[in-house]
């Protein structure tokens, strides 16, 4: 009995090509696969289906083919939000990554007293719910708010303005809040990355006469390339799908100056009963996010030669 079983198993082994996973493997991943299908693939498929229809969420939908997609790419009202999201990427992603990198490098170089406290303070915005952040900053940016008071106090009256009511400044204002939130996360990521670097590397560089800047570019930055990819991915995704900050701070205004794709999805699908258009914006946004993350990781891998 046992010998026949063994020989059977051996025979089965030989059936597939060497290295080919055994079919029973699929059984092991089945539970996860079912959950994944049910809660991710099926809704995604349904969303794709909806994007081909004009539907108010109440009655019967009307097939419109690719009209919704054409609208997203040609209707200026739908294209503008994507442009705004790109502006936010600079503030939510590039700025915090740069700031985080510099902060982390400085903190690693010369251990200061109370570094833990400092780290906590910079990281704190990450812990606070974004809606709370938005409510607070809305007050800070008010025409008679603390920011303008401070500007007036130092004689910069000309700069004081209703930040969120000014179409030229509103994205910058929202973006800076995003930068304020994201910097802590980036800094902590880079600190973790830098802590792997041996101190002797820095000492060697210093003996060779490298200065602060040289150390930063030649040791610190290459050492955290992996973390850089992670930080860029996380912050970029956050930037592209921003909703809470805009919803609470401006509701897309003034005019249409701060409408972003995620807000457009909510407005169209939930408030205006244009479910098809809303879903299409959401799907295009998903595609954009996937492309962006793929690109970021691609670059990180290419330059490093390994997986980062």
């Amino acid at each position, binding site marked *: 009995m046992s010998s026949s079983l063994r020989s059977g198993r051996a025979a089965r082994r030989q059936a597939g090509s060497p290295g080919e996973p055994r079919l029973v493997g699929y059984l092991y991943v089945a539970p996860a696969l079912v959950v994944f299908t049910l809660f991710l693939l099926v809704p995604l*498929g349904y969303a*794709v*289906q*909806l994007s*081909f*229809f004009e*539907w*108010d*969420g*109440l*009655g*019967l*939908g*009307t*097939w419109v083919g690719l009209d919704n997609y054409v609208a997203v790419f040609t209707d200026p009202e739908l294209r503008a939000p994507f442009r705004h999201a790109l502006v936010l990427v600079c503030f939510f992603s590039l700025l915090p990554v740069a700031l985080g990198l510099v902060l982390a490098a400085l903190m690693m170089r010369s251990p200061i007293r109370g570094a833990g406290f400092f780290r906590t303070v910079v990281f704190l915005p990450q812990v606070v719910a974004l809606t709370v952040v938005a409510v607070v900053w*809305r*007050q800070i*940016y*008010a*025409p008679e708010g603390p920011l303008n008071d401070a500007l007036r106090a130092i004689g910069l009256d000309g700069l004081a*303005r*209703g*930040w*969120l*009511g*000014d*179409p030229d400044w509103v994205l910058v204002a929202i973006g800076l809040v995003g930068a304020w939130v994201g910097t802590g996360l980036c800094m902590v990521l880079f600190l973790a990355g830098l802590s792997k670097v041996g101190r002797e590397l820095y000492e060697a560089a210093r003996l060779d006469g490298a200065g602060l800047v040289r150390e930063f570019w030649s040791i610190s930055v290459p050492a955290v390339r992996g973390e850089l990819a992670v930080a860029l991915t996380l912050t970029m995704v956050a930037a592209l799908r921003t909703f809470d900050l805009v919803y609470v701070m*401006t*509701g*897309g*205004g*003034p*005019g*249409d100056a701060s409408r972003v794709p995620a807000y457009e999805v909510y*407005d169209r699908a*939930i*408030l*205006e*009963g*244009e*479910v098809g258009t809303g879903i299409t914006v959401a799907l295009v946004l998903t595609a954009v996010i996937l492309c962006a993350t793929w690109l970021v990781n691609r670059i990180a891998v290419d330059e490093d030669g390994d997986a980062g």
Partner: protein
Amino acid sequence: MNPSRTRRLLGVGLAAALLSATVACAPGEKGGEGTETQPDAVKTDISDVGDVTLTVWDQEVRGGQAKQIQQLNKGFMEKYPNVTIARTKRSFTDLQRTLRNAITSDEAPDVVQANNGRSDMGAFVENGLLQSLDGYAKAYGWDERFPAPVRSLASYSGDGAVFGEGNLYGLPQVGEVVGLWYNKAKLKKLKLEVPTTTADFEAAAKAAAAADELPIQFGNLDGWPGIHEFGFVQNQFVPRDDIRNLGFGQKGASWTSEQNKEAAGTFSKWVDAGYFTPDFNGVGYDPAWQAFAKGEGVFLVAGTWLQANLADAMGDNVGFALPPVGTTGEAAVTGGTGLPFAITDASKHADVAAAYIDYITSKQAMTMIQDAGNLPVVDGDRSKSQGVAADVLDAWTTAGQDNALVPYLDYATPDFSDLLTAQVQKLGNGSVSDDEFLSALEKEYSDFTSGS
């Protein structure tokens, strides 16, 4: 064929199958029938219909409103022991977001509070998801108790295309108008009367500005207050029948009329003259009325829903009046009602639901609503109110008697709220001219009314 190729083909096949399934079946299902019970089929005595559970979705969750609806529900169940009310309460925005799903589900509630506008009540009517209440209105005499402008705010044609006339689909409990709140002490200091004409109002604003007082407190960061602020100016220059056509999205008016040009011009003029809060596009709605309550600003254009808050903060120092009368020579005031209570098409207990709606809008109910500090839509008792509450009730009564009530401008088309919000913000910061402002609105309005 190598395995990876097979797998890829399988993937393509699967995607193709999915796509064809996509094409085959449209989302959603055909709506309801838009049932209407005829007057002679109406049963007003529901004590013998057996045990019924009536599901009600409402948004009366704030202070006085929450109290009165609880009392009324309790009273109704005591009057009809065979009826149990299963209440789901949500905040206004939560209700708006979830009602679409609820009303199309198999377990749709019997009575819902539906927002008047086209995106909500209009869309529900279009899809046959609400019952016409005309039969009940005759049987219960609602068509006599509720004045025409109030009923028109919950009336649609049977196909949902025409707003403001046709069948009645709901009844509200409270009324609201957007009028002029004023600070009595400041008016007195400036030796001014409460302005009743545009000329008086502009003179008052000018005098206030000259005395270094902020004439009109205004915060438009949230966008929607701009609809009310512009409406306040428009009320004074544009004939109210035109405003009704514009607001209900019916043919027969124009945003580019001379009167509308005058209204937009006046709004811009007031902005330039500094009559509004500086940088008002950056000031939130709540901070604005709170600042007014603290004594910043002679006037505030806002709805009667601020009555309790302003009375608490300012006591006898605050007053309320209808918008001044301008070149039209007739009073007009933007206003409406609280969310109307409607009966869903899916309800199997329409008679019970109608009896419930009659009960919560009865004369006795209106007394409770007034006692709870709200503005009853009908049957307000002047002798019971004092201070600013009396001002508010008077304004509402006058608006009813003079037929002065005009609808919110954002009812016009499903997109109009977003458009008007954005346009008033742009007009306010000078990024569009008066003409650009009006032609953007005219385009949306005429596209909609011409059916394209």
